[in-house]
């Protein structure tokens, strides 16, 4: 009886070991997808240039098949009385802030997904519904999503929104950097419509260089900080401003990638499945020893 059990035990261990090996290869594959292109794109938002015309809001809705209304409706500046956030009805919004240096030139700040270099949503998503493309954009796949909303918990910029009013197939809504348009060789809708070119579309490394030049050239105009250059490991969207970013409602974030600690823990626990298997073996061992004791006692 005892021998029989020991054989079963070893057999099972073997099977689990093989499955674990298969699992661990698939986890290493997941890490490879974070290889980013050297030429990855981004957008530099110069908040000192933005005039708050909100044309980008309209263009974004048009392109994403959201009810947009007419462009003229966006001339209404009373919306600036409240601070708004991107949500399931608008993937980007512009907020207006007072300018301490010149009350007549308020600061307008467009908000949308920052398209992090190491996105928390991609790391957190239970079913891999998010993709960080080597070109920069972070997109979401409706076919996989189960609507758990963990991405919304994880996002350090508080961007993904959820269609709470939909009973069936509610979507996670966030800026997709017009990935489809970019594949067709077009610009993101907001960049294309911006009358001021406050949204500068280009390669991320060029944009950082341009931003540095701007700061150097006009040190009175800009604070010496490119938001998104290093925040949470860097983002595709970068911001310049004339005042501290915390005054423009940006969260104060460190330079560590948002998923860093979590992934360290996860990969620690699951380092090639060694810790769980060891625990299994250990428990098995203890059980085996104790079992023998009680058996002899029983007999």
């Amino acid at each position, binding site marked *: 009886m005892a021998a029989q059990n020991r054989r079963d035990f070893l057999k099972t261990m073997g099977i689990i070991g093989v499955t674990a090996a298969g699992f661990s290869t698939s986890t290493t594959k997941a890490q490879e997808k974070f290889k980013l292109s050297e030429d990855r794109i981004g957008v530099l938002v110069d908040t000192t240039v933005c005039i708050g015309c909100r044309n980008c809001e309209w263009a974004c809705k048009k392109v994403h098949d959201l009810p947009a209304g007419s462009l003229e409706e966006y001339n209404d500046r009373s919306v600036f009385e409240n601070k708004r956030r991107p949500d399931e009805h608008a993937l980007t919004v512009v907020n207006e802030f007072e300018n301490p240096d010149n009350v007549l030139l308020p600061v307008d700040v467009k908000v949308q997904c920052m398209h992090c270099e190491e996105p928390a949503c991609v790391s957190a*998503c239970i079913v891999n519904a998010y993709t960080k493309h080597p070109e920069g954009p972070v997109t979401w796949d409706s076919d996989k999503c189960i609507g758990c909303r963990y991405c919304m918990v994880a996002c350090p910029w508080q961007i993904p929104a959820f269609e709470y009013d939909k009973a069936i197939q509610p979507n996670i809504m966030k800026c997709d950097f017009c990935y489809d348009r970019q594949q067709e060789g077009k610009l993101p809708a907001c960049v294309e419509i911006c009358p001021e070119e406050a949204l500068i579309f280009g390669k991320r490394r060029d944009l950082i260089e341009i931003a540095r030049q701007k700061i150097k050239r006009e040190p009175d105009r800009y604070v010496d900080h490119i938001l998104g250059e290093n925040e949470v490991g860097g983002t595709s969207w970068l911001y310049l401003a004339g005042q501290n970013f915390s005054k423009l409602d940006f969260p104060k974030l460190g330079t560590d990638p948002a998923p860093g600690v979590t992934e360290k823990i996860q990969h620690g626990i699951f380092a090639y499945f060694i810790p769980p298997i060891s625990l299994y073996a250990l428990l098995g061992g*203890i059980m085996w020893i104790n079992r023998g004791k009680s058996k002899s006692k029983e007999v």
Partner: protein
Amino acid sequence: MEYYMNPAPVKKVKFLTRGVMILILLVINAFVFLAIRFFGGLGAMTNLDNQHPWGIWIAIDVACGVALAAGGFTSAALGHIIHKEEYKVILRPALLTAMLGYTFVALGVFVDLGRYYFIWHPLIYWNGSSPLFEVGICVMTYVTVLYIEFIPIVTERFIGKVNLKGIFASLNKMIDSLLRFLDRGLAKTMFIFIIAGIVLSTLHQSSLGTLMVIAGPKMHPLWQTPILPLLFLLSAIAVGFPMIIFESLIAARSLGLKPEMKVLSGLGRMMGPMLGIYFAFKLGDMLIRGTFVYLTEVNTQSIMFVIEVVVGVIIPMRMFFSEKVLNSRLWLFVASALTVLGVFLNRINNFLVAYSPPYAFKSYFPSVGEISVTVGFIALLVLLYRVIVMNFPVISLPDKKKLPMVKYAIKGGEQ
């Protein structure tokens, strides 16, 4: 020492009491709200919004559900791995609680998921870096393991007693042989599932803590720490036995049985050191990260933290060290209840109180619907527990007959 094991269906009590009626009403109430949720979407009846994506369905149904069902794996470790024979009497009730608890977790997740019909997606779309994926897979597997562990109780109840009427009568023999086959098969392989159950529990109890680590600065520093997974695991281990004590005492009272005070105070004796370890880590973490400075501010977070630690950890810890408490049915109950409350608060704090997202237009408080559904699920849980203990051999009744020891407690006392 002479211990006996004779789990049997509790037959003496009437099923429909006034309390049971109330529970049934609560369940019906929950289903009314669930209808709204499934026809109108989550927004129709919850207070969730884009700033607060997770509410009590995750904090209570899932996080607390998982933590409070920890009795299943701690008792299994005690009874099967360390092989303390004297505690085998609690194994079946603990298993049942765990099984129902995890079912409750699954139900909670199911209603909370925006696309509940895709709940199986994690099985095919894997993301190794997601702690939620790990929790999901572990919980799914563990629920299966728990059900498998429960099968012997079913086989014990029905082997030789399958007696379907009418046209199904012809199936009786087949079902009976199936049950016998299962019983035999499981007898040999049960240890695999028992160990797997413990490993899976360790993994997902801790990963449940990892869940909130990624929220980073959105979480109050009193709770946000890289050792959250360890704290979650330690607190889960610590709450396992108090939960068993808590529920044994309630069940005993409700079902009119005499509680196994010897066993329960034995469990209670282990609690002091266990809570001590948990408290030491929590305190050490606070000292190392210097987060005690936040205790000087008086706000919801700091008050909740103090309540959680003082009422939920320090007081019960002190109580469990006292012989008087361990031997008193009432005080043991109080100490256990406080520990359970402490962990319950800890999970709520971690998932709701500590979570203060930027840009929140309003703070989150659960809606009537959310509370109704959670309460209704708990009521359903209690009802199912009652139904099962009254029909299956789960609770050991004080029996004059002494029965020989069994191979596995899980297999039951049948020979």
